[in-house]
Each structure stands twice: as C-alpha cells, then as structure tokens.
C-alpha cells in the first residue's frame, strides 16, 4: 500500500467520522423541528416563592401537567420520572421535573409539595389562579376538562410530558406510558448537548 492510498483511506475515514458526528442521535420521544423557545410562565411554586421556567435554564426540564387527586395517569408518570432520575445517578442533578396542576381548586402549594415529595423530593409543582393556569395550558396545547363524579370531580387532562433542553427550547414530547429507560435514553442525549 503506497502513501497516496493510505492518505486516501484516512481522508475517507475522516469524512465518515465527521458525518457520523453531525447526525444527532434520535430521541425516543416525539421531536419538534425546528425547536422553539418554551413559553415562559410564572406560577406559585410548591417550594418557596415563584416558579419560573427561566430559573432552570442550564438544566434539562421535564414539564408535566396533572393534579394530586389523579388516580390513573399522574402517579404512573411521576413514579416513572422518579425512577428515571434514580437511574441517571449523578447527572440527575441537571434534570428538573416541573409538574403544573390542572386543578387549582384543590392543589395549593402545600398539597402539591406533600404529594410530589412522596415521589422525589426534587420535584417542583406549580399552581396559581385558574386564569393563570389556563394561559399556561393554552401556550403548551394542554387540554383539561373537569368531570363531575357524584359528590366529587375529576379532571381529564393531556397525559404527555415535554422535554425542554438546557437552552430553554421545547425539544420533544414523551407520550404517556413510556418507560423510565426511554426517559433516561433521551435525557442522556439532551444532557450531553
């Protein structure tokens, strides 16, 4: 093999490597193209003070909507997210779960704190006036419909979660029912960016 052939082979290899490096790994969630800035909001935090999305710039945020009296969707989603954070190990410090209520009548900051804390102490909840929450739901295309059930009521709501990258861009939508491993897969990609 002469020097010219070796140079040619090396060049081909370099081109192939560059092409591989440029192709972003595929997320398991549904991907928005092009990504847009996640709509900002300011709500009452289940922690202390105001919950603003901008506070978590630099972290990957998983944003979900639900309510603490939810018996089907929310406990499953929150348990899956807690499991995903545990699986991520130390890098979970760069992931923030934000859960916004669709039931402000019953979900005050204290109730949300108690409920979310049971899944993972780092989870943050957001609540506020019906008007403020309706505006956030509109910005994110979330549906929530109150349904009476005898003396009480339930809220039928969108069950997916959004994945927001470190730059605050809405990158992907994870449908309900996906596994913790799917979340871990996508979070690792977003954390590495």
């Amino acid at each position, binding site marked *: 093999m002469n020097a010219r052939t070796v140079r040619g082979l090396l060049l081909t290899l370099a081109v192939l490597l560059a092409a591989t490096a440029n192709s972003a790994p*595929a997320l*398991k*969630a*549904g*991907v*928005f*193209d*092009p990504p*847009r800035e996640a709509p900002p909001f300011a709500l009452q935090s289940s922690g202390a003070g105001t919950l603003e999305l901008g506070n978590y710039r630099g972290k990957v945020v998983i944003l979900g909507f639900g309510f603490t009296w939810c018996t089907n969707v929310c406990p499953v989603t929150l348990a899956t997210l807690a499991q995903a954070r545990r699986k991520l190990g130390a890098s979970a410090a760069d992931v923030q779960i934000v859960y916004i209520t669709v039931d402000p009548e019953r979900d005050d900051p204290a109730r949300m704190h108690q409920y979310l804390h049971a899944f993972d102490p780092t989870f943050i909840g957001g609540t506020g006036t019906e008007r403020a929450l309706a505006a956030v739901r509109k*910005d*994110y*295309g979330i*549906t929530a419909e109150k349904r009476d059930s005898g003396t009480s009521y339930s809220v039928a709501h*969108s069950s*997916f979660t959004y994945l927001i990258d470190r730059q605050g861009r809405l990158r992907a*939508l994870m*449908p309900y029912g996906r596994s913790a491993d799917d979340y871990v897969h996508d979070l690792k990609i977003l954390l590495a960016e």
Partner: protein
Amino acid sequence: MRSLFRWILLACGAAGLAVFGWAGLTPIETRADSGREELFEIPRGTWARRMAGEDRDILPDQIRLTLGIRDILVLRNRDDVPQIFGPTLMMPGQSFKLPFEQASEYQFACTAHASGQMRVIVDPYPATPWARILWRARRL
C-alpha cells in the same frame, strides 16, 4: 371446449398461487422516498377556510402504522397560525416526528377532530407469510 376450460382454470389457479406466494414470501420493504415515516400535513389556509365556515377534518380519526415498516408519525403545520395537531401544539412551519417502538393502540387528545380524540394503532411487524399477506391485503 372442456379441455380449454380446464386450462383456463389451471392458469387462474397458478396465477393466484403465484400472487399468494409473492405476497407471503416477499419481504416488505420501506418506501424509498419517505422511509418509515407516515406524513400528515395541515395545508396552508386551513385556519382561514375554517373561519369561513368550512368544516373539514385535517387528520383521519384513526391512523394505522406498522412496526419496522411505517412506524414514525410525522405531523407538519404548513398553515400560517399555530394549531393543536395530533397530541401537541405546533407553530407555523413546525413539524413533529413521533417514533413508535411498541405495537399497541394509542389515544391522543386532538382538537382537530370532532370527537376530540385521535387513535393511532401500531401493528406488529408482519413476520410470518400469513401476516404479510394480510398486511398487503389491507393496503389494496
């Protein structure tokens, strides 16, 4: 005359068998143009037409996908205004690509439908000859 009829019958039988054999034994390939994607678009001017009183469904009530063949749902908003399309809010010019990895039935809230629901059925990959025949027959 009887012999001719027998030959015609035999030829039809052989042709049927050949089609059946092809449908069952030839592997199903993805389309060269769009690969495994199934694309649905909101055309430009949809919002304006709706405002003018026209009521038309943008998406079918039910979308059928097949794992390994056509298992990526692609929604694209070509209209001039944001739209709730499928499960999500999409800005003008934005597309949403959702891959499926499990055969199942998925329900999404969707304001593009009168029912408020969109159903996506993801069938398993047709691995057996009989499954391939059924898959091809469904697409006739």
